[in-house]
């Protein structure tokens, strides 16, 4: 038997999950299992209780929240499979950055099981969905014994791979604000093998006015540190500018000053190099897509 011994719980409602979390010590939530199951098989985690979310009703959906014409947001249930996000017309139309990123998460077999909520709570700093949630200023909804509350994704990573959740809380949904139709977007990453976590990833979003001047930009880097990094200086430097190669090179060059982790996959200097190159590529690709209909 590969996994350690545990008591197994398969609740049917969010309220039952919250009740179990409040009552049980050393309990782990099992979502799609594409990270937790390997950790159990290798006995990196030894929970006394495993609470399986796969039979909980009402956590798998993709729906549109209304906002100003053309804007609004997409709300996605925590147990929605990555594969369903990948094939959602709504996501492709309203949140193309998310659609592009989710196709780069693992492989077909892992996306069939892997969930949005599982990925966000596992909070691997190089995970595509984590980077996209930061890029789009997502809000996560969590349920606990005192009811539901929203957390800005920027405040969600409490530490390396540690979400800012109380012990009796679970993530139930994430809401991704949409950018207006015709905005430019791109998600690019570098990994050693297809389907791996990125060593560094870059997510770019751009809007421009009729004269080709940037009116809004967002650039987010994954894999650099314990949480995704918004390159605020680059975003500010692009405002009012026309996107052209020389200027982009100058602006992205500043990313070489960023802090980055040094680990078995790559030294910090290499991550800085990737941040500089991938940011430029993402911004160029996003710019090329401005005005294109999804």
């Amino acid at each position: 038997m590969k996994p350690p011994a545990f008591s197994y719980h398969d609740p049917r409602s969010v309220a039952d999950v919250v009740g179990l979390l409040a009552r049980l010590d050393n309990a782990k939530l099992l979502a799609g299992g594409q990270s937790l199951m390997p950790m159990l098989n290798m006995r990196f985690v030894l929970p006394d209780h495993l609470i399986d979310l796969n039979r909980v009703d009402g956590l798998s959906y993709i729906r549109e929240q209304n906002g100003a014409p053309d804007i609004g947001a997409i709300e996605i249930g925590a147990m929605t499979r990555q594969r369903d996000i990948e094939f959602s017309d709504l996501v492709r139309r309203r949140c193309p950055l998310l659609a592009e990123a989710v196709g780069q998460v693992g492989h077909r077999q892992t996306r069939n099981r892997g969930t949005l909520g599982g990925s966000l709570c596992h909070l691997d700093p190089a995970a595509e969905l984590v980077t996209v949630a930061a890029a789009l200023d997502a809000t996560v909804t969590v349920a606990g014994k005192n009811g539901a509350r929203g957390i800005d994704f920027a405040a969600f990573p409490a530490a390396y791979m540690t979400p800012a959740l109380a012990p009796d809380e679970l993530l139930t949904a994430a809401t991704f604000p949409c950018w207006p139709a015709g905005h430019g977007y791109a998600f690019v990453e570098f990994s050693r093998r297809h389907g791996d976590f990125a060593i560094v990833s870059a997510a770019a979003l751009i809007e421009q006015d009729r004269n080709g001047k940037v009116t809004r930009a967002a650039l987010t880097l994954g894999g650099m540190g314990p949480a995704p990094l918004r390159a605020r200086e680059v975003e500010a430097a692009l405002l009012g500018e026309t996107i052209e190669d020389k200027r982009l090179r100058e602006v992205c060059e500043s990313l070489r000053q960023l802090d980055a982790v040094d680990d078995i996959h790559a030294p910090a200097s290499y991550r800085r190099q990737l941040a500089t190159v991938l940011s430029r590529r993402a911004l160029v690709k996003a710019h090329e897509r401005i005005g294109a209909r999804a």
Partner: protein
Amino acid sequence: MSERRTIAVTVNGARHEVSVPVRLTLADFLRHHLRLTGTHLGCEHGVCGACTVLFDGRSARSCLMLAVQADGHEVTTVEGLAPDGNTLHPLQQAFHDHHGLQCGFCTPGMLITLVELLRDNPAPSEADIRVGISGNLCRCTGYHNIVVAALEAAKRMRSDDGCQRSDVRSQMSDDGKHPTSDLRPPTSDL
């Protein structure tokens, strides 16, 4: 301490009601309890893809699921692909015809992954197949013929003639580049 539960699972069309330890993986359930040893276990942590099965029609790594999670669900393993004892599934036949397996260890996972891929996309390009099997490792590195076999199977399945044999190799150009353009899907089909 080993908590148990009784589960009812339909595997390759047959219903099984079995008491299992809750921490048993679906892969070990298939192999040790049902004796369906066609599902292979390579890494047991979700990297190699050898243990891929269809879970309610979708490919999944059975080493990353618990048997209790299959309660009330349907599983298809490689043993469930051939229609009968004398006929192979068109994909199996194409693997046989085109040397799509060397040691055979990765084959069950490759086949199951490709069954889903060809169901969702009956006219895949070579690139579609290479991306599709990117989660399945072949340590013989026999990918070339696996891709050839998958393209040939797709072609046979499109023409609804799973028994017809034709040689993709003879259609390749001399430099070994493949597939030839007639194997590529007409875009209007997509």
